[in-house]
């Protein structure tokens, strides 16, 4: 019986020295048995929840822009990366909280600038054109980040405690940062739903997504609403990038993977539906976490993308979308 080393990124969430040896390798038969105890189960569950929530925040960013413009911003993952990177750089000069706040503001400005320079003045561009433009933007942002910050892997310090501090919940040892991620996500979702329901700006944005022409006739400046939706989703992405940075680390190219997972989650929940995105994110995160016991770590990405493909083929309107409403839209 020997100690099983856990996959690398799980180490960032859970300190493996806390683990009792649960994996037994029988040398004579060469088989590997994982005894799924209640303890291990809750560890995997929390890992899944953490990653699921991160994907959900990215998916919410997709949904906001999709709702007001009908386009998918392929550069959404880059906002997450930019948020993390700016906060890490600013944290060298100022304490954590103002650094994060400033990073979010800077990313929001970048999001607004991107919309104003590249998207605002196009009249009724085709979807193919928008896809290619946003893909080009994501490449450009990534390359600028590469030349600005280099290839190195960076991270913010833990908000509370340090790398080895842990809290015991349901017999699982988890890092306090996980609670930060979950908490921030809950706050974002609550504030967003309040914002879209009770503020006039939120109501105007919803009006634009429901019927752009009618909203314009009512005196709403639809173009400003699009700019604002880019700012909002850039800000949410940047905040997510800051909160997750201590656990997942930030690198110039970390946006692409997140964008694809985020899109998977957005489609899984039904495009445009932020509440469903949280549920779908948790589902995907948990499936991914438990898939580690079955398939090698290297194929983990392939699993979530396979889920994306299956969902696209079987239920393109998402798990929680109604098929009647889906009949009106084109996939």
């Amino acid at each position, binding site marked *: 019986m020997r100690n099983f080393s856990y996959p690398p990124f799980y180490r960032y969430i859970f300190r493996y020295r806390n683990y009792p040896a649960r994996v037994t390798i029988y040398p004579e038969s060469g088989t590997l048995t994982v005894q799924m105890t209640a303890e291990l189960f809750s560890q995997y569950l929390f890992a899944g929840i953490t990653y699921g929530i991160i994907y959900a925040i990215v998916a919410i960013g997709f949904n906001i822009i999709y709702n007001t413009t009908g386009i998918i911003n392929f550069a959404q993952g880059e906002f997450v990366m930019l948020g993390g990177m700016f906060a890490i750089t600013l944290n060298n000069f100022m304490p954590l909280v103002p650094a994060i706040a400033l990073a979010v503001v800077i990313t929001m400005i970048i999001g607004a600038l991107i919309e104003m320079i590249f998207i605002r003045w196009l009249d009724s561009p085709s979807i*193919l054109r928008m896809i290619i433009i946003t*893909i080009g933007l994501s490449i450009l942002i990534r390359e600028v980040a590469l030349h600005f910050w280099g290839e190195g892997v960076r991270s913010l310090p833990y908000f509370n405690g340090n790398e080895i501090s842990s809290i015991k919940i349901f017999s699982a040892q988890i890092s306090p940062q996980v609670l930060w991620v979950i908490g921030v996500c809950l706050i974002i979702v609550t504030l967003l739903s309040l914002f879209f329901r009770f503020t006039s700006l939120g109501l105007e944005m919803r009006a634009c997504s429901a019927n752009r022409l009618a909203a314009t006739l009512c005196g709403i400046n639809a173009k400003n609403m699009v700019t604002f939706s880019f700012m909002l989703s850039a800000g949410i992405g940047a905040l997510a990038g800051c909160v997750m940075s201590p656990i997942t680390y930030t690198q110039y190219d970390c946006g692409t993977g997140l964008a694809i997972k985020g899109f998977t989650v957005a489609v899984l929940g039904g495009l445009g539906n932020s509440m469903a995105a949280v549920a779908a994110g948790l589902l995907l995160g948990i499936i991914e976490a438990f898939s580690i016991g079955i398939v090698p770590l290297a194929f983990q990405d392939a699993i979530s993308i396979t889920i994306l493909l299956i969902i696209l083929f079987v239920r393109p309107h998402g798990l929680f979308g109604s098929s009647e409403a889906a009949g009106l839209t084109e996939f």
Partner: protein
Amino acid sequence: MRNLISITTLIGSIVAVQLLTSFTGTGYYLTQLTMTAYYSLIIIGLCLVMGYAGQISLGHAGFFAIGGYTSAALTTYNLTSMLENGNSLIKFISGRGLLIAAQDLYGDPVLYVNPWIAALLAIFLTVIIAFLIGIPVLKLKGHYLAMATLGFGIIIFRIVLATEIFGEADGLSEVPGFTLLPGVIVNGDFNNRIFNYYIACGFVVVGVIILLNLINSRVGRALRAIHGAEDAANAMGINTSRYKLYTFVISAVFAAIAGIFLTHYNGGIGPSEAGIMKSIRYVAIVAIGGMANLWGALTMGVLLNFMSLRGMFGSYDDAVFGAILIIIMLFAPDGLLHLSIWRKLRKKIL
């Protein structure tokens, strides 16, 4: 007739470039030109899908990798020990003369699959995968189609990156040459450079002829109808899903053939060939050439791939392609050659 003139011009310029390099003593350019020609094969195939059928594919590097990796894995895997262990399948194949015995660097015997068989298997595999992926994927539109093809590309990338038989992160190397005809070998040998240049260009010429015939036929007209308005095309009695699927499979085969021969030419293949950036680069080049413009895509493909392979963009390689994508899509969505500036300029001059 118009096609005849264009193809004669294409062949003429291929020969002219070769003569130019040999007169100016810049024969080393031929190496990159050969690679460029193989990449152009993917680009004209993708042009059929994007420009004529109007479907975006962000996973074409995946088909390139399926072709290249299948061929490379079959021709580098040493079967000697399997034959000695009495594997009946290997014995059967060996008895049909489908294996090639040779010696490696250290004089040990190597036994590998004949590249012809490997290539045929690779193409067969590509056709099957393209069919299986194409049937559900091509029902999707817009963002969903883009993401589904992107996802397919990433799955292929992950598989080649994590599978031992495909060499994981190192890729496969020491791929043997491909003997097309006795004495005509596709490999990276310096003495074979001019031969190889003509072989690669031959593939492009044949590819262009096939596509031109396809475009100017019933199929091509059907495809343009699909691009214009899919519902209208459907109502006119065009089986849109079948035409889309066929063009997708044809372009996948083009990419796989390019993958097979480029792998034999380079003597190896790495996982970066399957990466997302490669797929996006192909899309960028098709977009610059003007989506429904085979000659534009070919010209831009040769130009940009050659510049990129010569290292003219330095460490800004990906950034250049990203910037090109944005600028072209913002200011000239019909391609550089269709820019209204040219028309305005012509009007002013005349």
